[in-house]
């Protein structure tokens, strides 16, 4: 993914490499650290950034809200934004248990440790991509129910019906999981969040194979992985440099050897 592909082309560089502020003032020590860090790690970080592919949903949010801003509209007025000024996407880290077939339950795991306790949570939704099942037959019709439950208590968080007549096109199923976050201190629970999906036939309790509905994780592209989208509202004005400090802290311990596996590094940093 190259971000330039979705945006207006940037203007030619001016004063490339200049690290002096106006009137010849030297940049403060903190800024120097940022610049030094950025320069020394730029090559590694380019690889790092390329490894992360934003979901279309996040790109769409950015495009919509930034276009609204240019028209003078506040993005928080949009119903979809739930009055949030920060929307974070967490990619599913769960894996299907191939030993268990049929696939009756599917666990979705998210590392939400990056969420700040200083921000007010205003909404959370799970977006699961449903493919057209390989063995889908047009004769196979009927109404199915999909439910999302918490892994620990099996409490029902949200449900919706799925008509297989309309299921011949792939698409995203959106389920509200805000119940999971209410009265929850994410950092105090190790930053892990687990929900499970199940599907039933009609109004019965008979659980059916999720593979038949196109929920299996086989051959999924990064952008087809489920995401947990969390809507937060900052209680105070955000300082852009705080983001930069976080980046430096989180990458400070990186070495060249560690670059062999980005996923391994990410896990280690979190530990």
């Amino acid at each position: 993914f190259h971000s330039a592909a979705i945006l207006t082309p940037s203007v030619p560089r001016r004063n490339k490499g200049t690290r002096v502020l106006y009137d010849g003032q030297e940049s403060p020590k903190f800024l120097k650290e940022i610049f030094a860090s950025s320069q020394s790690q730029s090559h590694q970080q380019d690889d790092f950034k390329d490894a992360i592919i934003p979901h279309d949903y996040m790109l769409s949010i950015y495009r919509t809200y930034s276009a609204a801003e240019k028209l003078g509209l506040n993005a928080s007025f949009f119903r979809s934004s739930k009055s949030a000024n920060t929307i974070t996407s967490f990619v599913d880290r769960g894996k299907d248990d191939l030993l268990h077939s049929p696939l009756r339950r599917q666990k979705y795991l998210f590392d939400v440790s990056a969420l700040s306790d200083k921000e007010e949570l205003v909404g959370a939704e799970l977006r699961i991509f449903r493919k057209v099942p390989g063995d889908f037959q047009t004769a196979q019709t009927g109404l199915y129910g999909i439910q999302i439950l918490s892994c620990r208590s099996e409490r029902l968080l949200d449900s919706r019906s799925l008509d297989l007549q309309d299921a011949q096109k792939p698409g995203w199923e959106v389920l509200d999981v805000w119940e999971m976050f209410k009265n929850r201190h994410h950092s105090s629970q190790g930053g892990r969040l687990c929900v499970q999906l199940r599907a039933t036939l009609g109004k019965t309790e008979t659980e059916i194979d999720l593979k038949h509905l196109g929920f299996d994780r086989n051959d999924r592209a990064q952008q087809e992985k489920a995401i947990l989208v969390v809507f937060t509202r900052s209680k105070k004005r955000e300082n852009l440099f705080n983001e930069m400090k976080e980046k430096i802290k989180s990458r400070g311990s990186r070495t060249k050897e560690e670059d062999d596996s980005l996923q391994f590094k990410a896990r280690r940093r979190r530990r």
Partner: protein
Amino acid sequence: TALNSRHGKRHGKKSRSRCSKKALHVNFKDLGWDDWIIAPLDYEAYHCEGVCDFPLRSHLEPTNHAIIQTLMNSMDPGSTPPSCCVPTKLSPISILYIDSGNNVVYKQYEDMVVEQCGCR
């Protein structure tokens, strides 16, 4: 002498314009921030530049303090510096970035673009 003096003063004023909004194009790549900011790669932030001299225009929305300071500066430039030309109204921009947990985040950052400049 009076003519020369007035001419000289006017010449001095012309060398530096009144406080107003000027262009400031920010390129995150040049800042080295393109490793964590996905979009936008650049934007127009503007900046405030120029002198706050007596008499202050109303569109500069001077504070009472700035009016007093400007008046004192006009009477005795050596004793008091002129008031400062600074942003008085700013607007947000949307940024899509990668956070410390490698998650893609959309955030609306306040006070990123200068909408209006004034004397403070």
